[in-house]
């Protein structure tokens, strides 16, 4: 009986979860969008990366350099390394978005972590995202923001832009539940933002990326 009451309350609470995009208004655009429409174009970029999180009651904090390079053959490599040079991980996608782990340090070699990081970079770089947009949404509350969503293996990837189609945020989840939120500093279309703040709302860790614009040799 007690279990039944508990289950009923839980069900009630779940069903009452606020609709995240309740003011959305479907809009028809004059041109169709695919994931490739939003894909950033760049040769290579480097970010200062700071990771903060909590496992149980234990907090963790570490930093490094994140290097992303688009290769001539059409693939992309993402290398995260310590400031002193040691490689934490080296991931790659070929021209068909097929993912490979080229190297990863022993402590990070965990399936769940690799899956999470892969998803982050695929959202950011628009890899492995179906070519047809799921739906195009418009928020009544904020007339400056437009949402384009693409169906993913689980939930949707939401790309939030301003009127000029500059990417402001990337979100992952469904209509009621947000799993990942990436806040981007304003960047013009097809470029990677100077500042990217990734918040894993369920996993409880954040990745803060700041673009490094100069190399010490330049």
């Amino acid at each position, binding site marked *: 009986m007690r279990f039944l009451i508990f289950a009923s309350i839980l069900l009630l609470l779940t069903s009452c979860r606020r609709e995240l995009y309740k003011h959305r208004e479907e809009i028809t655009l004059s041109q169709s969008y695919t994931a490739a429409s939003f894909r950033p174009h760049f040769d290579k970029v480097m970010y200062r990366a700071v990771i903060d999180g909590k496992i149980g009651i234990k907090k963790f*904090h570490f930093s490094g*350099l994140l290097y992303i390079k688009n290769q001539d053959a059409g693939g992309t490599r993402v290398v995260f390394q310590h400031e002193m040079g040691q490689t934490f991980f080296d991931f790659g996608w070929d021209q068909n978005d097929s993912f490979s782990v080229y190297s990863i340090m022993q402590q990070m070699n965990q399936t769940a972590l690799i899956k999470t990081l892969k998803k982050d970079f695929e959202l950011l770089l628009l890899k492995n995202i179906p070519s047809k947009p799921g739906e195009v949404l418009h928020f009544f509350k904020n007339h400056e923001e437009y949402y384009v969503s693409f169906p993913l293996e689980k939930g949707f990837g939401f790309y939030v832009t301003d009127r000029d189609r500059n990417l402001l945020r990337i979100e992952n989840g469904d209509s009621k539940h947000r799993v990942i939120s990436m806040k981007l500093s304003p960047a013009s279309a097809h470029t990677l933002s100077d500042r990217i703040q990734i918040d894993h709302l369920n996993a409880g860790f954040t990745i803060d990326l700041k673009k490094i614009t*100069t190399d010490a040799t330049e």
Partner: protein
Amino acid sequence: MHFASWAQAPKGFTAINQTGGLQSSLGKAAHTIKDISADFSQVKEMKMLQDKVSSKGRFYFKKDDKIRIEYTQPFQYLLVMNAGRITVKDENKTSKINTRNSKTMQSVNRIMMDCMSGNVMNNKDFSVAAFENSSQILLQLTPANAAMKNMFARIDVYIDKSDYTVAKLTMNEAGGDFTQMTFSNKKLNKGITDALFNIR
């Protein structure tokens, strides 16, 4: 110590078969060096990507167990080793590293400290092969256990014969990538303050 006398000499160097004299010279030099300050430049070569990441900064060593590595370009990062403890300061915060949990930092800490204190040939985690040319001594440190092999394929330590201080440090990874730290403008025994090794 494991001494690998069989190793092939790199180009421009000849093997040192009897290392007793070398160890003695390193020990004597370390005895006279109280502190070192230097500039450094670091280059990480990524073989597969045919690209490199460069940075630079300031380096400080003070006897017996204090090191400060301060990256100034193109990012700010400070790493201080003091009495076996490592503290790092990035753009966001200062944090203490538990070296027991961080084998990479622990091993880099040990190698750095050994290089500066003249004990680099006594590190049990590596077998050492020694070479020389007219101006430098090259110590090739090959990991002797699985934990080290997971981090490094080999570490090359180049030592200036003029003062027996480290001129260059190359950390080679298994996949062919490597990181090279080159030291310049070295100043010895100028009296470095302890405050440099205490960060909050």
